[in-house]
């Protein structure tokens, strides 16, 4: 187990370095060259000498490998993600401020969507190819086809402008605002939940379906277990494996979804910061956030694999070939 964990951690680290390399090299291909951000930072009519000075202060002119090594060693050895080019704050400071705000929204909607998707998937699988199954599948299909921003827009139109008049903008500077003013978070959380649901329940259904055809289910039925017991005791536990993997893979997707939702609802979380940073070429911030989500993805995968061992003893020893 320990050896497996160490191997996985090393693998993850390699992936992390590759991601860092690629994202670090990207600005070199910018239209307008590596100095393009200077024109945004200094406004369009900056004099050439001011641009040059900006480049010198931000270490732009050092050779690529020196810059990369500086960044790499900064991140890995000193946990220093550098300073934002637009805001007077370190990248880590910005992440520390805005990530919690996103996490609460993402977490709330994840929990909600799992609570809905699990029973829905089990029901769908047990009643497969019935009118119920088809109608749920079709509704989810349509949901799947609606892009995040459109869903949010429609929700704002219907529930904030046309009727009910829920607040469309969750404000409050505290990262715990969701607890002080839950009503304001109803719309964004609901939007994100619906989006997750469309994605998750398809996997839930097929995961349960795969279990339902197994021999032990037939045995359980044969010895007279009730439908409920078969579904929620026998199938559920065995369907957990694939579900956990999906959830692990799903973590970064949650961030991606939140990015759009935050932009539409004008909620200042990390997604909002990302859009801003990308639009104004705040390269260190973009890099920092990308690395953060990469770590989250890798951690998600790793945790999913470990959890899998907890749920299913058979995979515990084997690891991967």
């Amino acid at each position, binding site marked *: 187990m320990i050896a497996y964990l160490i191997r996985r951690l090393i*693998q993850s680290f390699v992936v992390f370095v590759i991601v860092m390399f690629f994202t670090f090299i990207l600005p070199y291909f910018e239209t307008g060259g590596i100095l393009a951000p200077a024109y945004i930072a200094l406004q369009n009519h900056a004099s050439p000498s001011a641009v040059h000075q900006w480049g010198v202060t931000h270490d732009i002119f050092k050779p690529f490998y020196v810059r990369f090594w500086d960044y790499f060693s900064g991140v890995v050895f000193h946990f220093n993600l550098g300073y934002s080019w637009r805001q007077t704050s370190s990248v880590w400071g910005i992440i520390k401020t805005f990530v919690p705000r996103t996490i609460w929204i993402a977490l709330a909607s994840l929990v909600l969507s799992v609570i809905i998707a699990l029973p829905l998937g089990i029901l769908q699988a047990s009643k497969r190819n019935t009118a119920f199954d088809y109608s749920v599948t079709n509704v989810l299909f349509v949901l799947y*086809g609606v892009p995040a921003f459109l869903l949010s827009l429609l929700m704002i139109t219907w529930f904030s402008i046309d009727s009910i008049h829920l607040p469309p903008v969750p404000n409050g500077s505290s990262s715990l605002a969701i607890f002080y003013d839950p009503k304001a978070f109803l719309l964004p959380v609901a939007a994100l939940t619906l989006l997750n649901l469309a994605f998750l329940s398809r996997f839930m259904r097929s995961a349960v379906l795969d279990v339902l055809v197994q021999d032990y289910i037939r045995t359980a039925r044969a010895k007279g277990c009730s439908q409920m017991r078969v579904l929620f005791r026998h199938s559920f536990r065995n369907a957990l494996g694939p579900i956990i993997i999906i959830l692990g893979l799903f973590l970064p997707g949650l961030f991606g979804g939140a990015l759009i939702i935050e*932009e539409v609802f004008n909620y200042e979380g990390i997604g909002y910061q990302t859009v801003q940073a990308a639009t104004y*070429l705040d390269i260190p911030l973009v890099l920092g956030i990308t690395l953060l*989500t990469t770590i989250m993805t890798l951690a998600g995968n790793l945790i999913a694999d470990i959890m899998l061992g907890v749920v299913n003893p058979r995979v515990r020893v084997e690891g991967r070939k």
Partner: protein
Amino acid sequence: MTFSGELPVGEVLTDAGLVPVNLSSENGEATFDAFVPLWRQRLRIFLQNKLAIASVAYLVFVVLLCFVGPLIWHTNQTDQAQALLAPQNGPPSAHDLLGTDSSGYDELGRIMFGGEYSLTLGMLAGVITIVIGTLYGMVSGFLGGLVDTFLMRLLDAFLSIPVLFLLLTLVTIFQRTTVNLIAVIGVIGWFGNARIIRGDALLIKQLDYSQAARAMGAGRWHIIRRHVFPNSVSNIVTVATFAVADAILFLTTLGYLGLGIPLPATDWGTMLNNASQYLANGYWWQLYPLAVIFILVIVAITYIGEALRDAFEVRLLER
């Protein structure tokens, strides 16, 4: 082919392979249809799916609307001078069937015009993702060993960056021309596809016919070209369908974030973004018609993809 009773007795060797001859036994039980080629069986399964046919019909309708519509229904799509004189945010009327947008362009005309961009770009970007994904997956799965390990670790790295982050960064870094947008969406979309197709290649190269070809001295490239690729075409086609839907979704999301095709051209995302500025003003004609058309396009493509997957599913074939 329907038969009850014994196996077919008479077979004729034709170009299409072994073809059972139409036989009728004495008791009239064993009847054999003529040999049905595989693609026709698949087509039949596809055509049995009413939703898939409706989806194809709808897509044809939208394509005709966007590309042929402007030739028949002349409206102001791009003329700025004329738009300035037209009513802005005008409600639907006999002249402007779906009203006008905030600049005074005819909304229906703009839907057609934006659709041309959204559909074409989505299509092309989808094709790029599938070409890259197929090549990468085939090479990785087929060569195996160290190459496979390296390519898959690299893919892990790509997959661990959230797609939207990558998309945003790339789009802001490169100038937003039509070609660049296609390239960027094409380049970020292939990761998942490559993984699926690699799985296929891994499987097929172990099957008897690939092994036999190898035993007869066929080169790697030959086996990929003549055995692995033709046998994973079904999966590739299915994956391609979803890739196109994804590409259109990405493009629209970019458009909504204000990073779509620059003026005076437009795409559906940019139009939806414009419409979102006036939500509270009640200009419903700017949002709902386009939203419905757009969502149905994505849903239709997804349905077609699902139907294709069913059609290629060997277990469903009548054999």
